[in-house]
């Protein structure tokens, strides 16, 4: 079982990292956890351009001049958890909806007509409103239309993931939010999500169930981002050792303004976010790195080619929001308001190919 060291112990790895350690880490052909610590350390801040160059070189070699494109489809805003930072938190007075299968298909059709081939189904945690049967049904209906279907919903059990894989879902994202147990307990006020260890073991259950890909991540703005980065590195390395058939991705959601009056507990600026992305890329050349529309267009354009490999585009975070632009109840407000076509054309301008289809439903048996 994967366990995470106490953040106070992780701090010891980063503390005392010198400029020489950073330079060494930049020159090593392979990096270990000590190199990652050096690359995440305050000493590495002065080397940000070097980190960017190394990260860019590794990324182009492994992924070529391409960026994968996907869109989230929000299915439900019902949630039984109270999470201090989230717009869907049970105590927030927002208009809540769960899309019927027909409504969800309508939203999916809109995304399909806009040219999306990879769709990410998202929902809050309310198994009574949206459970495995619902996801199974929607996946089997989406399968003929989309090349790839991912989910970002409540953590499930291994047999449930196996069912969803059979139904056509190939990838699961489940973010720990924070690997800092103390902070985790502070911001998760009630609900099933309070169980830190069940959530931490979720990526293993996903992989054990045979899913193609598992996405992990930490919500930036809750605890020390350097230590979250180190924890992500440890988690990646552990998953690689134990589930070698599973592709891995990491996401870097920075806290966005949302319903409720929560303010980030720590500030993570663009330079820090970039350092984190570069460090993880250098640490793990093969991991897919996601940069969503939480970030502004200017930043996302600037990061093309430097590390991230997958962008969402034209996103709306309220269930039903693609068909009805007036709809309220979004999870958070996005930072990049461009359409998919605009995002793709800007990617092309940077000399990269926006790839919409990089999977095929026929890999799996019907």
């Amino acid at each position, binding site marked *: 079982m994967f366990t995470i060291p106490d953040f106070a112990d992780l701090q010891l790895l980063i503390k005392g990292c010198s400029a020489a350690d950073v330079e060494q880490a930049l020159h090593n052909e392979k990096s270990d956890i000590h190199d990652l610590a050096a690359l995440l350390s305050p000493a590495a801040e002065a080397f940000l351009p070097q980190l960017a160059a190394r990260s860019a070189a590794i990324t182009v070699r492994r992924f*070529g001049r391409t960026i994968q494109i996907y869109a989230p489809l929000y299915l439900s805003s019902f949630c039984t958890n109270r999470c201090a930072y989230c717009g869907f938190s049970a105590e927030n007075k927002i208009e809540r909806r769960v899309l019927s299968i027909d409504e969800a298909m309508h939203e999916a059709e809109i995304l399909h007509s806009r040219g999306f081939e990879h769709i990410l189904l998202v929902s809050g945690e309310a198994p009574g409103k949206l459970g495995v049967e619902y996801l199974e049904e929607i996946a089997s209906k989406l399968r003929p239309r989309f090349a790839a279907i991912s989910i970002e919903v409540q953590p499930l059990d291994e047999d449930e993931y196996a069912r969803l894989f059979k139904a056509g879902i190939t990838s699961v994202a489940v973010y720990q939010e924070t690997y800092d147990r103390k902070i985790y307990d502070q911001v998760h006020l009630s609900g099933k999500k309070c169980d830190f260890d069940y959530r931490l073991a979720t990526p293993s259950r996903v992989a054990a169930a045979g899913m193609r890909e598992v996405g992990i991540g930490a919500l930036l703005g809750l605890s020390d981002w350097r230590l979250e980065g180190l924890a992500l590195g440890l988690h990646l390395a552990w998953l690689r050792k134990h589930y070698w058939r599973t592709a891995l991705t990491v996401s870097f959601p920075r806290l966005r303004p949302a319903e409720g009056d929560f303010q980030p507990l720590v500030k993570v600026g663009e330079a820090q976010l970039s350092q984190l992305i570069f460090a993880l890329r250098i640490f793990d050349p093969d991991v897919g790195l996601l940069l969503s529309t939480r970030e502004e267009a200017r930043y996302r354009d600037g990061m093309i080619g430097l590390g991230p490999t997958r962008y969402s585009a034209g996103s709306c975070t309220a269930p039903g929001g693609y068909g009805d632009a007036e709809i309220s109840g979004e999870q958070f407000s996005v930072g990049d308001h461009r359409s998919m076509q605009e995002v793709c054309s800007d990617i092309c301008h940077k000399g990269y190919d926006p790839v919409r289809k990089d999977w095929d439903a*026929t890999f799996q048996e019907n």
Partner: protein
Amino acid sequence: MLTIAGRTFRSRLFGGTGKFSSSRVMKEALDASGCEMVTVALRRIDLDNPEDDIMSVLDRKKYLFLPNTSGARDADEAIRLARLARASGGGDWLKLEVTPDPRTLLPDPVETLKATEILVKEGFIVLPYMNADPILALRLQDAGAAAVMPLGSPIGTNQGIMTAFQIEIIINQARVPVVVDAGLGAPSHAAQAMEMGADAVLVNTAIAVAGDPVRIARAFAMAVEAGRDAFEAGLGEKRVDASASSPETGLDFLR
């Protein structure tokens, strides 16, 4: 001329379609490479869509499409993809890739052999991507593979021919053409493979991600030709001690 499954190729350089910055750059680079066979990932293309960004820019009269099963984790998945590709007009040619480890993308020998046996029976022209294992090459050949495609080093690594010793054995033993695939990062690597006697090489990453893909494609084409010429001309044997080009071996004692 190179012949695979009864089809002849003037160029011994095969191309790929992944990792390019745009389909326009891809087309220009492939045109410049002079290659006549290009591999296309079935996961990336939509065979049913005539406007597919990769398929629509490449002239199928000029290039033989070699669909590949990249992403397949086992024989069943590869076979399913192959059948579907053929049903959608993808043809009989197939680059079989079974790569269960998404990190190294190294080929699974057991599943590759299994899939080859089945697909050959179904009439596919199978070119399996394989690790540079001489016995596996023989087994694949016996199973009916039209060529074997041993790797120089893992895909996308640009490390060159790290498996030279085994590839030499494969070349010496094989009845079917040997196409060195994966890991060729520089024209000199391609030339080395050809000098060793490989029948062809397949190059993708090194062309797609180069600063100037069109120019590097031309460079690879020249290197492949040079290497082949050298092989056919016959290279001097290697030896350890120096050998003067005008020998002055002291034989003046002879009467």
